[in-house]
């Protein structure tokens, strides 16, 4: 016994210093490794590995070194030698596969990886280990095959679906990727958000979106009542901005989930946010018709009217053109859109009546007032709505101030000047009004003073507005200021001119033209402005033929006038938008470029020519 103990002690004395020595060398090698001197590190690792090949740390460090130095043969040799002692070590085998792959011996790598699987056919985690080793070596197709094999063995349809979906999407096989995600969805409907986030990786590409839609539609054909599939396809349609199709799906979802219109409402709000007004209005209408007792029906009705109005505005081809001419924006009673606007007004009125004292009611009334004023020029109709806001919705914030602003404009049109001034002065001082609202009130006041011939008062008011250079109304204020200042000495004609503009505002076109004609016969600097104004008023009235004649007269008789370029542009715009005579329009745009190359309208004229030519820019 004594002898044995002595032998052990003696061996320890010999072994421990040797062990310490190896550890010291290992640390030195690690330092070399840290500074990137792999040659020196590997030399030491080889030495200590030779002394103790059983130590995994030494083995692993040497393998790392061989890898860094691209000594793949040596790496394979030490792995194989270690495998002799641990032939079934999955990690070792996986590293062997990786080294074969790096050395370019792909076949060998594949054989090794396959051998791991063959030896552990029923162990599903092995498939993941091998596939991950393959992914690390960027063999995505191989990894896919491994997962497929694993699924087959497991006999579980959804096995590795997320992994395979991701790999397919990486390899741009969007159809297969979507198929995998649908398998996952079938297994668990709660995964819909996760699946959407995965699919969104490729829906930004048209091919990806098309594939995802194709696969989901096919699946839906087999299971039309599957709610998750319906939600997924609706989301895909929305991604592709196909709101009509999305709407049809939301109707199905609403029915399947017995949501009583909630699903359709969610869609309608989404579509409204995305400015898909036409579809949104259909969705709101659907709720009104089929779910009249919908909980939030006030929002639905208001949404319906609002989106209908917005869609009509977007489709309206008669719009403000350039910054120079306003083509006739009023809707005639014979016009087909008149009926739609009338319906919109009815809807807004219903909202106001059915849901009094709500935010929707005040907003609805304000919209009614606007449509009456802007579209029908129905001053009394507009005033009625505005008065209702003034009387019943004093505390509705911005809408109230906007309504009072609108009322002041209506009163000006009605010639009820004193009341208009009182309203405007009130807004200009009202603490609850925004800066924009106050500036607008000040501008309308200044303009009113200009209309009334109180030019100095108007100028003082405009000066006040110009203190706030960031205001939206500043440009208009400057333009009016310049007009007044430039013509103050010609006061007689300036008074006539301002009166004519007042009459124009009141839609008293004939009287306005009468005054303008009077000025046009003088030698006043306002003469050409007056001819131009006559053209503008005729354009507003839809009398394009006579408008063109006025503009042509101006061009022929005053070719050097400051308004010449603007006039050519107006003619071109009338041909382009009102008369649809594109050849003539192009001719006038070109004339502008040729004769007035420094005009501020040349850039827009160039753009219009290119649009007419159909240039792809």
């Amino acid at each position, binding site marked *: 016994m004594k002898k044995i103990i002595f032998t052990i002690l003696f061996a320890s004395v010999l072994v421990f210093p040797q062990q310490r020595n190896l550890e010291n060398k290992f640390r030195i090698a690690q330092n070399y490794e840290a500074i*990137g001197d*792999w*040659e020196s590190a590997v030399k030491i690792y080889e030495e200590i590995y030779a002394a103790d090949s059983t130590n995994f740390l030494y083995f692993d460090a040497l393998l790392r070194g061989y*890898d*860094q*130095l*691209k000594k793949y043969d040596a790496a394979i040799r030490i792995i194989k030698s270690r495998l002799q002692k641990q032939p079934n070590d999955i990690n070792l085998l996986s590293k062997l596969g990786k080294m074969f*792959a*790096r050395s*370019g011996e792909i076949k060998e790598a594949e054989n090794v990886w396959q051998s791991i699987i063959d030896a552990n056919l029923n162990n599903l985690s092995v498939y993941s280990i091998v596939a991950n080793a393959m992914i*690390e*070596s*960027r063999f*995505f197709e191989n990894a896919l095959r491994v997962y497929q094999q694993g699924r087959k063995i497991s006999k579980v349809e959804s096995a590795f679906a997320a992994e395979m979906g991701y790999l397919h999407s*990486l*390899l*741009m096989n969007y159809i297969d990727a979507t198929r995998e995600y649908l398998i996952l969805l079938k297994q668990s409907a709660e995964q819909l958000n996760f699946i959407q986030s995965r699919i969104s*990786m490729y829906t930004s*590409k048209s091919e990806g979106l098309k594939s995802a839609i194709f696969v989901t539609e096919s699946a839906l054909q087999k299971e039309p009542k599957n709610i998750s599939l319906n939600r997924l396809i609706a989301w895909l349609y929305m991604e592709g901005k196909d709101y009509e199709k999305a709407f049809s799906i939301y109707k199905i979802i609403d029915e399947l989930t017995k949501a009583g219109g909630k699903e359709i409402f969610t869609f309608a709000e989404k579509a409204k946010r995305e400015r898909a007004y036409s579809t949104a209005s259909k969705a709101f209408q659907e709720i009104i018709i089929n779910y009249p007792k919908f909980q939030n029906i006030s929002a639905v009705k208001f949404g319906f009217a609002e989106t209908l109005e917005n869609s009509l505005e977007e489709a309206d081809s008669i719009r403000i053109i350039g910054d120079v001419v306003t083509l006739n924006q009023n809707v005639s009673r014979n016009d087909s859109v008149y009926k739609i606007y009338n319906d919109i007004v009815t809807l807004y009125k219903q909202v106001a009546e059915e849901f009094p004292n709500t935010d929707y009611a005040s907003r609805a009334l304000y919209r009614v007032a606007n449509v009456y004023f802007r579209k029908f020029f129905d001053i009394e109709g507009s005033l009625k709505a505005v008065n209702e806001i003034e009387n019943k919705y004093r505390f509705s914030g911005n809408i109230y101030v906007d309504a009072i602003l609108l009322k002041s404009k209506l009163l000006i049109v009605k010639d009820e000047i004193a009341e208009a001034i009182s309203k405007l002065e009130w807004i200009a001082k009202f603490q609850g009004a925004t800066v924009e609202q106050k500036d607008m009130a000040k501008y309308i006041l200044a303009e009113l003073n200009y209309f009334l011939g109180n030019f100095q008062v108007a100028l003082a008011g405009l000066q006040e507005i110009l203190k706030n250079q960031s205001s939206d109304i500043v440009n208009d204020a400057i333009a009016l200021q310049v007009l007044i200042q430039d013509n103050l000495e010609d006061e007689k004609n300036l008074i006539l001119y301002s009166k004519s503009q007042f009459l124009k505002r009141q839609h008293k076109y004939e009287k306005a033209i009468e005054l303008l004609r009077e000025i046009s016969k003088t030698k006043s600097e306002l003469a050409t402005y007056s001819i131009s104004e006559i053209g503008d008023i005729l354009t507003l009235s839809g009398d394009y033929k006579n408008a063109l004649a006025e503009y042509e007269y101006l061009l022929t008789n005053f070719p050097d006038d400051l308004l010449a370029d603007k006039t050519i542009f107006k003619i071109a715009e009338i041909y382009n938008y009102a008369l649809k005579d594109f050849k003539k329009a192009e001719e006038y745009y*070109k004339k502008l*470029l*040729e004769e007035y*190359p420094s005009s501020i309208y*040349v*850039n827009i004229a*160039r753009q219009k*020519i*290119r649009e007419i030519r159909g240039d792809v*820019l």
Partner: protein
Amino acid sequence: MKRALCTLIFLFIQSLNAQKILIPMDLKQTDHLKAYGIAYWTLTKGIEVDWLLNYRGGSFMMDGHNIIASECRIRGVYFEEISGASAAKIYAEIQEDDNNMDVVRLEKAPKIAVYVPPNFLPWDDAVVLAMEYAEIPYDKVWDEEVLQGKLYEYDWLHLHHEDFTGQYGKFYASFATAPWYIEQQVLYEKKARELGYRKVSELKKAVARAIKDYIASGGFMFAMCSATDSYDIALAAENTDICDVMYDGDPPDPDFQKKLDYSKCLAFENFTIERNPLRYEYSDIDIPPSDMAGMVNQETDYFTLFEFSAKYDPVPTMLTQNHANIIKGFMGQTTNFKKSLIKKNVVILAEKEGTEEVRYLHGNYGRGTFTWYGGHDPEDYQHAVGDPPTDLRLYKNSPGYRLILNNILFPAAKKKQQKT
């Protein structure tokens, strides 16, 4: 004889009366960039264009056709209609020995290919922006087309922010998890395998060699930003692996620096490759802003174009035509080229005075030429990934962008006899 004399006199008088269109390229020009497009468009109509080197900023002159005048107006290009006599006077002025000017006649519209990846990348490409704004048609080519020899169908090859080293722009540190980066790597790997290359870096080296062969046989290459130094690095690293594991799946050759073969490069030599795979630099060819802390300032960053003899060195003269000879600097992954690392046979076209920074260079290889321009976007000092593309309508007179467009017209030039 009498008849012939009469005809000659008639032609002479007619030429004096004939209208010419002069497109000045000095400060009077309203849209310098579209002016190149007009010159190109005129050539496509079979009408010759004279490039008046160093005359009013490198103006263009052509016969006075109404369609050209109209097109100038539509595109917003300033022009002057001048008489034949005035044109003759201009030509005479240019030909005077004392004036460093010359006329280069352009005869055909060159065919231009732009090397553009098929996938979306979240940065813009100044070369494509310039072409599209100037309305100069171009075809897109990528690795497969280059390897199939399609380049030989084109006069020019333009490249921008590309990486020929196979390191995906060295964006790994910042964008390894970004979908566009992941997709780019997979797409390129897939393409490499399809084309028979084990690694993207190997494919890119093959592409770089194919481009070099194209230049040797008379092609013209214009490159910007990282397409410049990464191209030469790829050529030098033909027999070694400089890519770290995240780029090609295995570590780089530890001795790659020693194995670089600078004789293969077009423009640079003796450079040192950046070993850190996470640093957004390829080598020491570019002097990154981080190395010039406190010295880089947008307000003071300008570079100067060199002046060449128009009559003796028409090509460098064409490449430096501009209405300004001091140009606003702009950064890129490769902003500049260190002068000490540029081969002696390369012509320096522009540099930042008093520094080692060369911004624009030109050289010949075989029967072709290469012109390289540092920086990413001449009108966006520090263009970052994800930034919106520069709207060139706001930079119609950009001297920096003009340098790009100088690199489209000279294959159109009629060969002149050498003066010496």
